[in-house]
């Protein structure tokens, strides 16, 4: 998970205590995904259990510092050197909604798409307006924030384009007569494991 690796990567710059890690994470990601202190301590516990960090000094204010181990440094290097793998296992709520809606009778899919598009465009407008306040980054914090906001903008744009594409795909399917709703399948699937089929030649 990226929070675990992000905190570890920050600790690679030097020992930190919990609150400090939280504010370091926030300022490097534009406070877009704020972490609570509980998450920080839970993550640090797991990192310590896995031998990636260890307890360091306690300063005069009583702050418990944590420092990275050699194994932790190796993990940071591996994280930075390898791609982020996005799995299809993460359900896409919108794709599921449209896929189901297109099979149902009496649903105006064009309207479902338009309602979503309006919402997506509003998000895109708000992100653009926020970004518009900054022309060119004047600090590395701003640069990091712009990268995050650009990523959200491109994701919203991709969603809008996919909605456009879905709309024209739907129109073509309708014209070709392939957009009829799916009737319920009356052949009820059997419970339990499917029966084994004997392979030919077995």
């Amino acid at each position, binding site marked *: 998970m990226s929070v675990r690796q992000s905190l570890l990567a920050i600790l690679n710059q030097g020992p930190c205590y919990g609150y400090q890690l939280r504010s370091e994470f926030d300022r490097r990601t*534009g406070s877009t995904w704020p972490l609570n202190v509980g998450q920080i301590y839970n993550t640090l516990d797991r990192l310590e259990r896995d031998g990636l960090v260890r307890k360091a000094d306690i300063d005069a204010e009583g702050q418990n510092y944590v420092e990275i181990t050699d194994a932790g440094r190796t993990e940071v290097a591996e994280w930075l050197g390898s791609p982020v793998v996005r799995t299809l296992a993460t359900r896409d709520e919108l794709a599921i909604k449209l896929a189901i809606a297109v099979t149902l009778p009496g649903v105006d899919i064009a309207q479902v798409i*338009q309602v979503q598009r309006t919402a997506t465009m509003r998000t895109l407008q708000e992100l653009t307006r926020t970004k518009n306040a900054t022309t060119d980054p004047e600090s590395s914090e701003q640069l990091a924030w712009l990268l995050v906001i650009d990523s959200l903008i491109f994701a919203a*744009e991709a969603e809008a384009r996919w909605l456009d594409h879905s709309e024209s795909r739907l129109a073509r399917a309708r014209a070709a007569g392939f957009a009829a709703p799916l009737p319920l399948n009356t052949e009820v699937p059997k419970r339990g494991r499917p029966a084994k089929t004997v392979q030919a030649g077995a």
Partner: protein
Amino acid sequence: MSDILLQLDGVSMQYGRGETAITALAGIDLLVRRGELVAVMGASGSGKSTLLTVAGGLTPPTAGEVIVEGHWLSQLSARELATLRRRSLGFVFQDFNLIPSPTALENVALPLELDGWTSTKAHRPALDALNIVELGDRAQHFPSDLSGGQQQRVAIARAVVGGRSLILADEPTGALDSTTGELVLRMLRSRVDAGAGGILVTHDARHAAWADRIVFLRDGRIADESRASAVSSLLAGSPA
């Protein structure tokens, strides 16, 4: 002075007659105020470009009224309409539409000269307009010496020269790469923020998002509208 720059009132546009007639616009009501950029989105054939040509007085609608800065276009003579277009409207097209032989400065000064200004007198506001799009130092360059993004900025300067206040842009970023397109939109946005108004026709969601309002056309009608809220609830905002 009214802050309404453009009003479309029940505007319809039909091409052809009888059974083969095509309805490009069907009863469009739209207002553009000073300081407001309105994006128009929709699939190909939804009526986007027709809306722009009708709003710009290039084609009269078959029904309804177009009102530009208080002038009812249907009441104007051809000469009055041409004058209003020169003085109030600026067009920006996908392919820039600059004239190759004059310099950037002369291209921007052209609408004023067509309106009877002397060349010397027209060059001052033309240079001001080029400075606004940060191309004052390229005034003596010919369009062929400029990049696509620079040519489009010259076109924006031409669209706003001499205090013209309504910018009608048809896919202005269509021929530009992503970063240059964003720069052009930033310029367009800043002209609108400075008191102009505009319609931006685009199929690009990321570019439409620069507008205050986005109207979605479907089959010549406004199917929906997205209006950005004044304050974004999505993000904490730019770090200092």
